[in-house]
Structure formats: C-alpha cells, structure tokens
C-alpha cells in the first residue's frame, strides 16, 4: 500500500506521486523504461529510502517494522555478494535471520545454485551471482517478495527456471512485486501491470489491457482540424493525441488503423508508423495530460 509517494534526488524528481494498493496474493509488475522510478519506488517500499512526501504501509506496518518481522524479502537491482563465504554458507546465514525460512538445500536446488554451492561467492559469473541473489530472497520465505529486475543477466534457460519458481511461490499465496523493462515478462507472469513513466503511474490494470496500449505501434500523421474523437473510433486505434498540426495514434493493430486512416482521412500527410517504446507510447500522457481513450 503506497500513497502519494514522492522522492527527489536534488533536482531530479524520481517518483512523483505514486499511489498503489496491492492485495495479498497478487503478482504485480512494475513496468517502465530506464529511469522511470521503479527502483526508487522499490527503495521507498522497502524502507531503504525515506519519502519526501506520502507514506508506505506493508501489512499495516511501517516498512522498517515489516522488514524487521521478516514479512518482506527482496532482491535489489544492484549489489554484489559478500566475500569469503561459500554460496551455501551465505544462503544459510541469510536464512538464519528469518523466522520461517525455507530449507537451504531446497532453495539451492530450485535456483540452480546447488551446482556451485561450495564455491566462494566472489568466483561466480554474473548470471550465477544473480541466481544466488535470487536464492537469498527466496530462502527468506516472506509474505511479500520484492524483486528489482530479477532476470537481468540470466540466460534463456535460467529465465524459464526463474519464472517457473516464481509461479510456485505465487501459487503458495505470496504477494510478489517485480520491476521489469519487458512487457512480455510483465504480461506472462503478472496479474496486474503498473506502468511507470517519469515517476508517475500512467497505467495500472490487467496485463492484457496494458499490452493493448503499449504493445502496439504509433502512427503519426499531419492532419490539422479534425476531431480527435473521430479518429479514435478507427479500427485498431487505442488512443489519439494532438501534437500541433499532427495527430498521434497509439494502435493495437496499426495495419488496420493505417488502412482506415487513409481511406477516411485522405488529407493525412507525412505519415510515420513506429514501434512504440514504453517511453514513447506514454510520453503524451505524461507531458500533455491525457490522451482521449478509445471507446
């Protein structure tokens, strides 16, 4: 449960008013481009940073108290492992800090870290390190698991194993919040996707809905003096925005939208069709206020 969260680093406003209520058992993806404020939101959630305004409550507790009672576990985006311990020793030490940890060997197995359990933590590859970091979060067996870009540095197989494990965790009734850049990941594994751009939540809903809005392409065309609501009804168009003389259409099906646009609005010129990056697709929302939602 986050309300009215704000955090600035000097002149940079990293998080600008985020409100989120997450129900127990939900799997929520924080989706957003680089610098969107995902990690900052997670830091605020875990009590690693203090908000300038707003508040965080986890299971009715302040973050520090929830963390202290072992209700929360997590994997941060950055951070290396501590030296002079083997992987197994490290996982065991972290497990010992929690009231209800999973068995160490079981976690080493599920994360695939068993293969190098007796190696020193400093002698691992990037992906192996990432798996151990995941093991540290998992062994805690917390009610809320927070993961910041958990699959960065993992190969395809490791990614698949990772998500299979997460499915198991989710089906055990745990709440999971993870940050990612990848719409596909958010779509495949989250019940709910929160799209964060420039420190604000620009969309929040079931993955399919977000996918329709972001996964498509945008069409940009010079087309002065028409009614936005009219182009909005074209097939395949999700939202329409005006940028001076130009209109920008976010499309779920750009082919259908383009055909219809040319047919119904022969005056349209300078047409561009682009794959919409997360940032591009939602820049309009953030800078100009709202787009006109499709009916």
């Amino acid at each position, binding site marked *: 449960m986050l309300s009215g969260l704000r955090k600035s680093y000097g002149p940079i406003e990293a998080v600008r008013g985020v409100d989120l209520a997450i129900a127990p058992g939900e799997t929520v993806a924080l989706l957003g481009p680089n610098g969107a404020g995902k990690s900052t939101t997670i830091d605020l959630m875990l009590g690693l940073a203090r908000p300038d305004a707003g508040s965080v409550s986890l299971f009715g507790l302040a973050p520090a108290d929830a963390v202290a009672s072992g209700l929360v576990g997590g994997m941060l985006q950055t951070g290396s492992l501590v030296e002079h311990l083997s992987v197994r020793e490290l996982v065991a*030490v972290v497990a010992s800090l929690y009231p209800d940890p999973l068995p160490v060997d079981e976690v080493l197995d599920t994360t695939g870290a068993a293969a190098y359990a007796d190696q020193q933590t400093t002698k691992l590859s990037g992906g192996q390190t990432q798996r151990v970091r995941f093991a540290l979060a998992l062994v805690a067996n917390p009610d809320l698991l927070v993961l910041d870009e958990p699959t960065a540095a993992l190969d395809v197989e490791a990614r698949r194993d990772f998500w299979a494990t997460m499915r198991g965790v989710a089906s055990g009734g745990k709440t999971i919040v993870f940050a990612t850049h990848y719409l596909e990941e958010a779509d495949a594994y989250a019940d709910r996707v929160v799209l964060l751009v420039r420190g604000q939540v620009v969309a929040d809903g079931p993955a399919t809905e977000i996918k329709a809005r972001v996964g498509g392409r945008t069409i940009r065309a010079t087309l002065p003096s028409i009614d936005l609501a009219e182009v909005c009804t074209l097939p395949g168009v999700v939202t329409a925005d005006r940028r001076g003389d130009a209109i920008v259409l976010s499309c779920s099906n750009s082919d259908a939208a383009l055909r219809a646009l040319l047919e119904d609005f022969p005056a349209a010129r300078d047409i561009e069709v682009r794959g919409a990056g997360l940032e591009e697709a939602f820049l309009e929302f953030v800078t100009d206020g709202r787009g006109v939602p499709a009916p």
Partner: protein
Amino acid sequence: MSKATYLRAEIVRTFRNRRFLLFSLGFPLVLFLAVGGANKDRSLSGIGFALYYMSGMVAWGSMVAIVSSGARISTERQTGWTRQLRITPLRTRTYFTAKIVCGYLLALLTIVVLYVAGLFLDVHLRVSEWATMTGLVLVGLVPFAVLGVLLGHLVKPDSLGPAVGGITSLFALLGGAWGPLGSSRVLTDAAKCLPSFWLVQSAKVVLHGPAWPPAEEWVVLAVWTLALGRLAVLVYQRDTARV
C-alpha cells in the same frame, strides 16, 4: 540463534581474509622483531628495551586491527551488501556488534602473537602482569572500535588505506607507541587527552605502581567513546536517509 549464526559467519569471514590477517599481524610483528631484536640488551625508561618496544607494538598493532575491522564496513556499503542486509530482519546493532567482536578477536590475536615474540626476546613477566596488561589494553581499545565503525561510514573504500593508516599512525605517534615524545611539557600534557596515550600506558602497566590507572584514563576513554559514538550515529543516520 540467528545472531549466533550471523556472528559466526562474520568471524569466519574475518579469518578467511588471509591478506588482511597477514598485514594486520605482520607489520607490528616484523617491526618488533627487527627493532626489539637489535636493541635487546639495552634498556629504556628503566625497563628492558624488548618489553618497552613490545608494549608499544601491542598498543599500535591492536589499534590498527580494531580500527581496520570496523572500517571494512565501507566496502560493504560500496558493494551494496549493507543495503541487502537492511532488507533482512538483521538488527543494525547486531551488524555493528559483530564487526566490533571481529575487531576484538583480531586485536587479541595480534597481542598474543606479539607476546609470543616477546618471550623469544626474553621478555619475562608474571602471569598477573600479562593478564592486567591484556585487560587494560582491551578496555583502552573501546574508543578505537567506535572510530573504526565511524570511518567505515565516512571514508570510501578507495581512500580507506591512507585514512586508516594515517589516523592510526598519528594516534600511535602522539600516544607514544613508537617511543617517547620528547621532553616538551605542552606536548606531553596534550597527549594525555588522547585515548592512544592511555592505550600505550596500559600496555606498559608493569612500569606503573599499583595505583595505576588513574581516574583520568577512564574519563578520557569515556569522553572519546561517547563523542565518536555520537558522530558515528549521526553519520549512519545521514547515510541511511540518503541512499
């Protein structure tokens, strides 16, 4: 239970760090064997040179051991490990306590190694004298344990070497660990305000009468411990608010 496991892991980590051990134990030992060995038959301030020099090395070596143990927090902050720990139920107090316990173990090892070297250079003391000396040195190290934790939060890993080396050398020099400060009254009086002066004197307790240590020592140690502790808390709070 969780505290014991964590503490054990920290101790294991400290003693697996070979290079760290080698340098902390090595420097005072080599210096003692070289200088103490060469001047074995002389005497200084009314006691055998070897005993005099061993005491100085005990004070300096244990000080360096305990300060650098705390200062290693700096590296754990840099690599993000402390952030990872802050999202576990581990208490901040347990984290710091473990660092200080490791520092004390390392200091104790340094002291014992120097004692053994002292035996080889014909330093002979009664058991009660060895014990009093050790006990007083361990108490004298308290402000330095806190200083280590403070430096761990103030100094980045890349400047840790010079910072710890420079500060401990200054304390050792002014405290008289490397030899008498000379006859300047002002300097000698000023040195009495330093915790290292009392640490060095603790290591030389056999020189003093049974009335030693005076209340002054406890006051100086307490003031330094409280002041450094207060600073460490401030720096820690600044650090965790900003991250």
